[in-house]
Each structure stands twice: as structure tokens, then as C-alpha cells.
């Protein structure tokens, strides 16, 4: 894939950030072309939010160069601020104002002409289906409605580059699909989207390019297909009748695999071909195998192959 034909919306080299002893970003390079969706994928604590904070001018990096929409972060953060919109993980709305007043606040702070600003707010209320609640204080809104308003506020200034930090975390499936549609519409208008997510499906659905962040480093980058290709065939899942049989299998097969003692299960990275399956079965006592299934590759497998641990474990670790 050639990515250098369109100009870069976001270009990052050697980005580093530490909080005390903890290295959060350990040398990140990114080059995101205009009009594309870029997903930064990673478990909680991988450094995704820190990356967004730095790129959206909230935090200064320890080292590295950042250029957004042609503006240098160190020299002209206000230039960047005129080009971007940010929706963080936590809602950034004034709960004491009404939805319409929140939008108007954004229009005023974006220095839009009064008439254009009014029109823009009315359009967004319509687009986000906020008509019924627009006149009520946000404190009365449900969580999902607040998120919608939050996203609408981000769009008031018609930013060319939008950062969405886990935009659908905590949303119900319907609200999630609505958000995805909004993102697709924005991309159709040529807006660049920088998305962080821990949902592999979300990155797969939306992103042109995905980078996988783990412990402050990008451990893989490519389009969803590229990444899946790095784990050809996914994996073979086996469950065993007894713990002893599981032990035997682990000893016999060796190499990288995921073992689940509770379920007596074993997950072996594999290209999924008949030969590979036979190769595994030939080495095992097949009588002790209770079940066998083949796992087609998805981005979970990317995590498995790249980090040696499934992403779901990391998600369970969070609070």
C-alpha cells in the first residue's frame, strides 16, 4: 500500500513520554494520510490516551516531533488547535447548561460567525437526533445521549482532524453503530480520524490503518488485512479430558501457545491447513482430546501472535 501520495494529516517521529519512572510512550512514529481513519489499538494502560493527549496539545512530550495539518506542535500549538476536534474518554460537556447552549458555547469559542454558528448547531442537533432534549439541561441526559452531545460539540468547529479516544466504550450496541456511521460520514467528507480503541472489531470495521500499541511501543502497523496476514490461519483450539493430558500435550508440542488450566484448553497458533492440524494431532494422544476447533483469524490473534497474550486478558485486568 502506498501511503505517501496524499499529504500527511499527522506526522509523528520519535515520540516519548514518561511519568516519573514509568515510560508511557517509548519512541512512536506515525504517518497518517489526510482523509483516512487510523486506529490505535491496545489494551488499557498501553499509552493510547497519553498519545491522544499529546497530539491534541493537552500534554507536552518529553521528546519527538509532531506535525499536524502542517503545524508544528512545539512551535504552533494554536495552529494545531484550529485544525482538530477531540472527544475524550470522559464526557467534556457542561452539565448545567442545556445541550443547545453547549453547542452554542462551542460555536462561540470556535469564533464562528453568529449566523453560521447558529445554523451549524441546528444542523448538528438534527444530525444527532438531539431535538427533543436540546432545550433541557445536560444533567438530565442519559450517558449515551451525553456522549452523542459530546461528539456533536467536537464537530461544531468543522475540524479537519478528529481525535476520538475510545468513543464507544460503555455504549450499547445501537449507539455504537450510530457512532460508527457518524465516523464513516466524516471520512466521506475528507476528515481524518485518529481513533483509539480496545475493541478489535471496531478497528477492523472502521480503520484504514491500524497500529498496535503495547507497553508504549508500536508492535505492529498495517491495514487490517496486513495484520491478519501476520497470523496466518489463526489457531487450533483443543480441550482435554484431564489435566494430565493437558500437561502431556504442552510438553510434547512446545513452542508458543495459550494454556487455560480451568477449561483444560490449549490454543496453538497455526495456519489452519489440514496438514498443520494433522501435524498437531499426530503428536498427541487423540483419545485424550475432548474437542478440537479451528479459529479463523481476527485481530485478537494479532495480539496473541505479537504479544504472546490475548487482548481479552488485559481488558479483564482493568479496575
Amino acid at each position, binding site marked *: 500500500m502506498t501511503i505517501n501520495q496524499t499529504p500527511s494529516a499527522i506526522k509523528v517521529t520519535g515520540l516519548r513520554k514518561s511519568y516519573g519512572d514509568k515510560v508511557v510512550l517509548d519512541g512512536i512514529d506515525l504517518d497518517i494520510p489526510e482523509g483516512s481513519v487510523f486506529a490505535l489499538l491496545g489494551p488499557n494502560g498501553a499509552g493510547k490516551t497519553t498519545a491522544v493527549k499529546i497530539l491534541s*496539545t*493537552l500534554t507536552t512530550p518529553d521528546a519527538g516531533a509532531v506535525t499536524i495539518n502542517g503545524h508544528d506542535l512545539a512551535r504552533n500549538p494554536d495552529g494545531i*488547535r*484550529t485544525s482538530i476536534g477531540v472527544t475524550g474518554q*470522559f464526557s*467534556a460537556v*457542561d*452539565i*448545567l447548561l442545556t445541550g443547545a447552549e453547549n453547542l452554542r458555547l462551542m460555536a462561540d469559542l470556535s*469564533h464562528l460567525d453568529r449566523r453560521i454558528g447558529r445554523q451549524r448547531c441546528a444542523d448538528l442537533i438534527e444530525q444527532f437526533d438531539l431535538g427533543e432534549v436540546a432545550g433541557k439541561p445536560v444533567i438530565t441526559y442519559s450517558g449515551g445521549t451525553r456522549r452523542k452531545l459530546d461528539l456533536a460539540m467536537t464537530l461544531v468547529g468543522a475540524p479537519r482532524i478528529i481525535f476520538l479516544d475510545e468513543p464507544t466504550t460503555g455504549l450499547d450496541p445501537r449507539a455504537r453503530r450510530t457512532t460508527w456511521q457518524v465516523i464513516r460520514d466524516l471520512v466521506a467528507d475528507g476528515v481524518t480520524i485518529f481513533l483509539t480503541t480496545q475493541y478489535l472489531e471496531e478497528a477492523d470495521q472502521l480503520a484504514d490503518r491500524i497500529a498496535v500499541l503495547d507497553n508504549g511501543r508500536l508492535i505492529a502497523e498495517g491495514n487490517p488485512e496486513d495484520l491478519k496476514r501476520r497470523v496466518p490461519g489463526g489457531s487450533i483450539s483443543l480441550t482435554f479430558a484431564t489435566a494430565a493430558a493437558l500437561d502431556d500435550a504442552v510438553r510434547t508440542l512446545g513452542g508458543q501457545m495459550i494454556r487455560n488450566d480451568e477449561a483444560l484448553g490449549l490454543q496453538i497458533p497455526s495456519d489452519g491447513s489440514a496438514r498443520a492440524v494433522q501435524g498437531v494431532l499426530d503428536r498427541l494422544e487423540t483419545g485424550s482430546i475432548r474437542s478440537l476447533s479451528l479459529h479463523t483469524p481476527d485481530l485478537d490473534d494479532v495480539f496473541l501472535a505479537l504479544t504472546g497474550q490475548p487482548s481479552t486478558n488485559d481488558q479483564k485486568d482493568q479496575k
Partner: protein
Amino acid sequence: MNTASHAVADTLTMLRRNFKNQLRYPTSVIAIVGIPVLFLLLFVYVFGGALGTAVAGAAAGRQEYVNYILPGLIIMTAATGSLGAATSTSVDMTEGIIARFKTMAIFRPSILIARVISYVTQTLASMALVLGVALLMGFSPDASLVDWIAAVGLLALVSFALTWLGIAFGLAAKTLDTASNLPFPLILLPFVGSGIVTTDSMPAGLRQFAENQPFTPIIETLRGLLMGSHIGHSGMVAIAWCVGITVVGFLWAIKGFARDRTR
């Protein structure tokens, strides 16, 4: 890109937001006015008969005591106003909307400037309410127009200083609880000064503290302006304290504001 060209427009936008919040949810004004009014009622009606004699001589009573205590409670209102500034600043910071403002190309100081203006306004309005209650209770000031103008100027200065300090508390505190606890000693300072009784009646060590803490010269100056008592060098000391507190609060607030507060 020069955001300073938007300084006035952005400050007005922020002010509109703050005033709307304050008018629609006047709960903080209720707390700011409520505490000094509660003390006013308690001290004048419960202790006033006895304390009047103590502060204004044998023939004095409740009436004289209202006149004595009001300046101290007006200054206490500046302290409760500071508490209001601290808590609502802390709430705002954790709500994330300030982080949103910081990602926009606005004149950043407008966030703090508008905040100071709206809290000072809130505190001065609260002082007017406390004064109103005191007038109903028989407070009879002995002040000329010039005295009143000077008194309002002094109160604006005190409110300005304590508002900066309150905002600094709100920015420095990691939690809302801390933000609401930090300014609390300020509310009690008029008690260990000349707010409730004269400092002459206190034991030596406490008396030394009471006479040298910032609120005493401020209260004495206000009392002088409103009641015609002797001000002396209290005026200059009061102004010096206000300027000092403003500088500390301002620098501390700027430091806290620059810090990234988002989680």
C-alpha cells in the same frame, strides 16, 4: 495564529457560561450567604446580649453587638465565597470540559479571568445579602458616601484576593473533598481575630496571632469605614495582605492550571 485577538470575545463567552451556571443553580450562593447569616443570627440573638457589653461597654446590648460583629461576618462571606470558588473550580476541572477548552484555539487566560470575575461578583452579591439581613436586624452604620465607596473597594479587593486563592485550592486539590476542606480555616479566621470579640480579651499567645493574622486589619479597616472607629495603620496593612494573598493565589492558580488535570 494569535489567540490574543480573541481575548475579549472569549472572556465574554466564558463569563456568559459562568453566570448562567450561577443563576440557574444558585446552590453555592445559598451556602456562601448561609454560613455568615447563620453565625449572624446565632451570635446576635443567642450571645449578643452578653457580648454587646463585652465589646461596647456596660450600657451596650444586642444593637451595639450587631454593629460590632457585622464587619467580621462580611469578611467571613469573602471566605465562604472562596470556598465556593474552590469547589466549583474543582468540579469543573474533573468534568473534563476544561480539557476540551484547552484543545481549542482560544485565548486561554479567558478561562481563569472569567472565573475570577464571576466569583468576585458572586461574593460581592452575597455580601450585599448578608448586609441586607444585618440591616433588618438593626445594623445601623455610621458612614458617609465616601466611606461606603472605600468599603466597597476594600471588599472587592478582599474578594479578589480570596477568589484567586480559592481557585488555586480548586486547581491544586486532587479531589473535590480536598478542595472543599482547604479553604475551611479561612472561614474560621474571623473568630481568632477581631471578628467576634475584641482581641484584648484573649490570652497573650492567641492575642498575638489574632492581632497579626490577615483578617484582623481587614476587619478593623471595614469597621472603621462603616462605624467610624479608628483605622490607623490597619488600612495599609489590610491592603498589603490583600495584594500578598492575590499574588500567592494567582501564581499558585497559574501553576495548577498549566498542569494536566484529565484522568
